[in-house]
């Protein structure tokens, strides 16, 4: 980040916290409705240092990574096939759209039933939700590859593999990374939803626990903050990848 950007970013964060505090004070909300920022931050630090969050965090992170790998990987392959074959698109796309149009919340209990309460069901839900944006972005990206560049490849007798690696993927990369931006944030959503449908560990479970049996609303907020930070961190990774591979064009 350039230095000129840091100041406004910090200022905006300060404003956010001040408004939060003001709302709590002026409206007089009790801590179990909206805890003040200082108690959330204190609980956040406490829960991280005493080891309350860490095991749940590790579980969710694993689900997110595996879900991303499977979902984005399948999205790339299927998106490519959709772009290059009209037949595949006709046959497959209704199912993909139908799966996407069905709310993941409605599908999650079914998937939990099929794949059990362990890691697999979360990875399935996570990859299902990541798949769509990546597949669509890949399809659009591959389709928009300049036909003149493909002709150049043909004139230079590039093999199928060379066309893919040296023309199609680099040309479609901005679009694919755009899909991945959406995908990584949805991956976090997928993991949490999966945990709500049945799990004994994970940040989604901790949200439920702190709201229910523990009745520790600051901990719930600290957990939500952790979830948000995971999403932000993953998003930043994609942005950095974009800057590295696309920015220089």
């Amino acid at each position: 980040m350039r230095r000129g950007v840091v100041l406004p970013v910090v200022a905006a964060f300060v404003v956010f916290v001040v408004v939060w505090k003001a709302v709590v004070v002026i409206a007089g909300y009790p801590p179990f409705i909206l805890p003040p920022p200082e108690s959330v931050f204190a609980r956040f630090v406490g829960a991280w240092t005493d080891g309350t969050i860490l095991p749940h965090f590790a579980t969710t992170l694993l689900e997110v990574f595996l879900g991303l790998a499977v979902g984005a990987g399948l999205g790339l392959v299927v998106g490519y096939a959709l772009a290059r074959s009209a037949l595949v698109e006709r046959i497959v796309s209704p199912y993909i759209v139908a799966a996407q149009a069905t709310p993941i919340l409605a599908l999650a209990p079914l998937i939990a039933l099929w794949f059990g309460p362990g890691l697999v069901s979360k990875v399935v839900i996570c990859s299902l939700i990541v798949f769509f944006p990546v597949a669509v972005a890949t399809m659009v990206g591959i389709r928009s590859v300049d036909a003149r560049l493909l002709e150049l490849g043909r004139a230079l007798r590039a093999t199928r593999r060379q066309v893919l690696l040296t023309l199609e993927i680099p040309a479609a990369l901005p679009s694919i990374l755009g899909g991945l931006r959406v995908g990584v944030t949805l991956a976090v959503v997928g993991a949490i939803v999966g945990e709500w449908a049945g799990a004994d560990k994970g940040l989604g479970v901790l949200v439920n626990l702190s709201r229910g049996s523990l009745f520790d609303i600051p901990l719930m907020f600290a957990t939500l903050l952790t979830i948000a930070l995971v999403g932000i961190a993953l998003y930043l990774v994609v942005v950095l990848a974009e800057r590295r591979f696309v920015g220089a064009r």
Partner: protein
Amino acid sequence: MSADLRLTDVAVGFATREGGTHVALDGVDLAVPSGGIVALIGPNGCGKSTMLRAIAGLLTPSRGTVELGGTPVTGPDPRIGLVFQEPRLLPWRTAAANITYPLELADWPGDRQAERLAEVADLVSLEPVAMTARPSELSGGTRQRVALARALAMAPELLLLDEPFSALDALTRERFDLELLRLGERAATTIVMVTHSIAEAILVADRVVVLTPRPGRVVADIPVDVPRPRTIEVLDGGIAAGTAAEIRSHLELAS
């Protein structure tokens, strides 16, 4: 090393949407000796780009043969270098990486690629600072220089150019035309160039082939008897004026 090009009775047809055939090129015979420079000229739609693509092996003639150095061209051919109307560079690669792209596809080892890069960059007079720049950072002329270097990378026996300098301003274009002339000698390659500028054709070519549309046919094959080395002043001379008038008369008959 350059090689001679021979087209025998070449015809190219395209299927139309109505189910018929559009004849883009019909019964074209052309022989270009090794090291020769021929300009193809004609009005829009006369099939000159189609002819170039048939020679390049990018489309298969419906009749007739294209031979380079006595062996037929049946598809994209490593002996042929191609420069398009627009530079057609890969925007994510540097100029240097664009030039070595054909070598990379042909699996040349890295050190030989670097060697060849230096040779062709010198051949097209590309400044060293441009080598690490991306196409978007280069001027139109420099981009076309890079495209020319890329086409020469595999040391082609035949160089095909499809209105390569038409997007450049008039002065830059003349400079490029003269450079191309010298390049043909230094790179030892036969050159076929599509143009619709009579001046450019006279400046560069040994022979100007005039095509007419519907269907594309060769109507005239006019030698350019302007001695070499040529300079921009030859265009003001009497021989050039006579040749230009002859070309123009055929073009006017055609349209």
